[in-house]
């Protein structure tokens, strides 16, 4: 038997199957040259476009590159004139100019399908199983929810993808995270991910491609899987994937850029072959009891500093070595005392949005909590895309939020990264549905607690971190 044949017959993982379809060559003692089916760019790619022009190169396959304006767009206005500062307006203008110069399709500010790349691209059917997808953004891992190898790249790598449609990448090790059992009510995909982070740690998956599996994942909607894969990078993972299944195909069917009539059946037949073979071997396997997961919040400055909402702030003195020093620094930055019940922590502001949690199911979950209640702190809702915004308005969710005193904004990254002028003030404490609680992430000296949309809405109506399962009953209208 030929070696190639043997390799094809031995059990393979989802990752292997997609990887092998894209590996053009492997350098001795080095990386592989991978073919990139699709590259997404956001405004931050102006460095790469500049590099491309300086080198006298062009975008080789404009039809394989798609742009989304998301990081710098204002969420109160829908044109560049509404940008927070002239410097931000310049970045937005450069994005439009570069799209025009290169001939790529851009979902720019003002486009009715504009949105955060990791929300808008899947909903447009641009993200498909079996693809290799890159983007100048670390949360590109999100797209793996549909069974793609999708990973974030830097500016130099973006230049290369634009010029050659390829990227150098060393084959990562493989990790499978099995979430078994079934989720209790009130427990969202975000809670599952924060529980995984608490167990695996922020560096636990460095150098690994992650596959999420198990009954909890199989039962998830695509939007929930997107939330899960989104935070693969918070585990340090190179990418995160879920095997494509009937849920995936039903989600993709009929989307604007999904394979159409002529190719649909062939595509689905191929996608069905992608799942990991039963005996496929992973370098690491992690087991998580999905039935034991409760609503989670973070208390520190790293996303793995997550605990169930009924826990208390940890006491650094009970930790050792580097962990103790890190926890001390985190508590000082966060302005928290050890052993405080998490539900005693008062918050100043709420942000519902970001590529982790700004899809229609997220907004429904938040609206279900906000309905008939009143926010007691400033709260903003930023849909992940203009399509999500319209869908929410068609269901009346905007009215629910407005009646509850939440602000209803246009699509963009907004307060997740505070690049567009939507900032958490110094010292303020924000309950946020985003993915990073890093120091300064939402603004200089801003304090971030990560949680699900329902939990963020609960925090908005109580003014504290709260267990969404134990909210006081609503007043009658």
């Amino acid at each position: 038997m030929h070696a190639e044949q043997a390799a094809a017959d031995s059990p393979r993982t989802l990752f292997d199957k997609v990887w092998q379809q894209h590996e053009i060559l492997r350098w001795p003692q080095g990386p592989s040259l991978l073919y990139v089916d699709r590259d997404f760019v956001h405004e931050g790619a102006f460095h790469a476009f500049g590099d491309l022009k300086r080198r006298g190169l062009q975008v080789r396959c404009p039809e394989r590159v798609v742009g989304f304006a998301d990081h710098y767009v204002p969420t109160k206005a829908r044109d560049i004139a509404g940008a927070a500062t002239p410097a931000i307006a310049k970045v937005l203008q450069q994005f439009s100019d570069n799209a025009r110069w290169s001939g790529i399709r851009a979902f720019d500010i003002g486009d009715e399908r504009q949105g955060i790349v990791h929300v808008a691209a899947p909903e447009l059917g641009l993200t498909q199983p079996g693809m290799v997808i890159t983007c100048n953004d670390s949360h590109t891992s999100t797209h793996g929810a549909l069974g793609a190898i999708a990973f974030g790249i830097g500016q130099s790598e973006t230049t290369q993808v634009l010029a050659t449609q390829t990227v150098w990448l060393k084959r990562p090790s493989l990790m499978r995270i099995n979430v078994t059992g079934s989720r209790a009510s009130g427990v969202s995909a975000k809670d599952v991910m924060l529980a995984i982070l608490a167990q695996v740690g922020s560096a636990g998956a460095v150098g690994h491609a992650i596959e999420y599996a198990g009954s909890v994942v199989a039962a998830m909607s695509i939007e929930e899987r997107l939330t899960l894969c989104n935070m693969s990078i918070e585990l340090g993972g190179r990418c995160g994937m879920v095997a494509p299944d009937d849920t995936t195909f039903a989600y993709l069917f009929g989307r604007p850029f999904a394979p159409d009539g002529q190719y649909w059946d062939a595509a689905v037949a191929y996608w069905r072959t992608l799942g990991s073979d039963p005996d496929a071997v992973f370098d690491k396997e992690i087991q998580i009891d999905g039935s034991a997961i409760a609503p989670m919040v973070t208390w520190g400055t790293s996303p793995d500093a997550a605990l169930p909402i009924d826990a208390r702030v940890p006491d650094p003195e009970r930790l050792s070595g580097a962990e103790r020093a890190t926890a001390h620094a985190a508590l000082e930055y966060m302005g928290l005392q050890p052993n405080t019940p998490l539900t005693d922590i008062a918050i100043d502001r709420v942000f519902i949005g970001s590529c982790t949690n700004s899809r229609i199911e997220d907004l429904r979950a938040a609206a279900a909590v906000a309905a008939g209640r009143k926010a007691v702190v400033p709260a903003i809702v930023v849909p992940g895309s203009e399509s999500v915004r319209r869908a929410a308005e068609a269901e009346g969710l905007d009215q629910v939020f407005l009646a509850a005193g939440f602000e209803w904004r246009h699509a963009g990254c907004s307060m997740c990264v505070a690049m567009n002028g939507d900032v958490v003030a110094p010292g303020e404490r924000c309950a946020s549905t985003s993915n990073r609680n890093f120091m300064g992430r939402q603004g200089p000296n801003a304090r971030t607690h990560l949680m699900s949309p329902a939990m963020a809405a609960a925090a908005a109506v109580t003014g504290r971190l709260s267990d969404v399962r134990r909210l006081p009953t609503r007043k009658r209208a």
Partner: protein
Amino acid sequence: MSHFRDFRAIAAPIEGVNVDTDQIIPARFLKFDRASGYGRFLFHDLRFEMEGRERPEFILNRDPFRAARILVADENFGCGSSREGAVYALGDYGIRVVIAPRFGDIFYNNCLRNGVLPALISVVDAAALRKILHAASDPSLTVDLPSQTIRYGDGEPIAFSLDAFWRDCLLEGVDEIGLALRQMPQIEAFEQALAARRPWTASACQRRLTGEPGLGTVE
């Protein structure tokens, strides 16, 4: 690139695990052109008070570490965002080598693309080096890429790991984009085979994105 052969320079210890790229460069500075220089943004909010005054306790605000060209960090340095601005800031400040037990994957690649050497050593060795640097009167290290070693004074050399491919690229100043461009015949052949295998992902099928006529122009 001389700074990879017996390169001797001041090395600053950076304490703490998971030093993310938001700490290395806050997002608000990424909108500026590289040409204006990114060195002043390095560790900005750790280095400066809100009003712009230096924070005296931060390591790079203390002599001799102010002149550091090497950093020795802890686990998962450069995790988080893919912003290459983090490496622009290091490079423009003058940092040529970052030594740590583990790096964020994207940050690691970004270093290699910008002539900043990411040197992997063990947790124990990294902790020992940081301790030495804190106490030393001359906190200099010597880094040698051909032999892949780090030395403090006359001490035993510590081996660091780096794939041979990247070592050669750094030593010879190979441009990885140029290297990829030279593979174009293979890339084109691959593309054609791909179009036959998975026609729905072929370029012709994607033309509807750019408004050109192609297969499946339905939208």
